[in-house]
């Protein structure tokens, strides 16, 4: 956590970055971290061993993993630009969950195997659909504190 401590007390000429991982942000980092490990390791194993079985599903899982990774990094890094980038990615994530979730329900034949986002993330306790909504609320609130600090 050296990075976050540096962010909290950065006074050497730079503007202090907004901390995005204080309070509920820490819980978000944990849940996003779990999703990164889950989605990335799952897609690596599946792409390496049985890619031809369901190429679309496994590629979508890999994309989900990359998006989760970027959001986690942005949250830990902190700062206004990271906050905006994370907000955009959360919106993209939410859109992804909704589109892929609907797609898997409408046309199951395109998905011989599940993705992380199948059925709106049911296999992951619906965390994939709840997480971006929560994160967007959190990131919007963090804008207020950022404006107050600068």
């Amino acid at each position, binding site marked *: *956590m050296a990075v*976050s401590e540096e962010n909290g007390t950065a006074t050497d000429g730079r503007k202090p970055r907004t901390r995005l*991982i*204080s309070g*509920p942000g*820490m819980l978000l980092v*944990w849940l996003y971290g779990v999703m990164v490990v889950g989605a990335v*390791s799952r897609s690596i*194993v599946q792409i390496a*061993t049985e890619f031809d079985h369901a190429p679309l599903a496994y590629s979508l899982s890999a994309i989900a993993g990359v998006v989760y990774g970027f959001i986690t990094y942005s949250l830990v890094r902190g700062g206004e630009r990271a906050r905006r980038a994370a907000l955009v990615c959360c919106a993209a994530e939410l859109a992804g969950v909704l589109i892929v979730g609907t797609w898997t329900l409408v046309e199951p034949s395109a998905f011989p195997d599940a993705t992380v986002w199948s059925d709106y993330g049911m296999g992951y306790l619906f965390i994939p659909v709840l997480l971006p909504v929560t994160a967007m609320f959190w990131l919007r609130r963090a804008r207020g504190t950022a404006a107050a600090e600068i």
Partner: protein
Amino acid sequence: MLDALTVATSVAALALAAWCGFAAYRDQPTKDWHFIGMAVVSLLALVQLVVGIVQLARGEKPEQGTVIFVGYLLGAFACVPAVGFMSLAERTRWGSVTVAAGGVVLAVLEVRLYDIWGG
């Protein structure tokens, strides 16, 4: 042996989650006793990791594949120490919530481990 450990670890993980959830409810950060609890759960997960690897070395095969099995064992072992450090960095009720979430995640991993081993 492995199934018993899986059950024990998931029960301990849920107990830890309830305990830290209660701390969060009372608006408290994680304290020394919570960390001892996390150490106990981590120890169970470590024993499970060792027993799992010994079982593999003795030639037993998990139903859904060795790579996935070892991956989940490692994930289960790393889970609680990770939230422990995060709750050290976040000395508020939210640190306790994070540990509670970690306990729930570990319990889910144990259910998956049970399936993967083919219990």
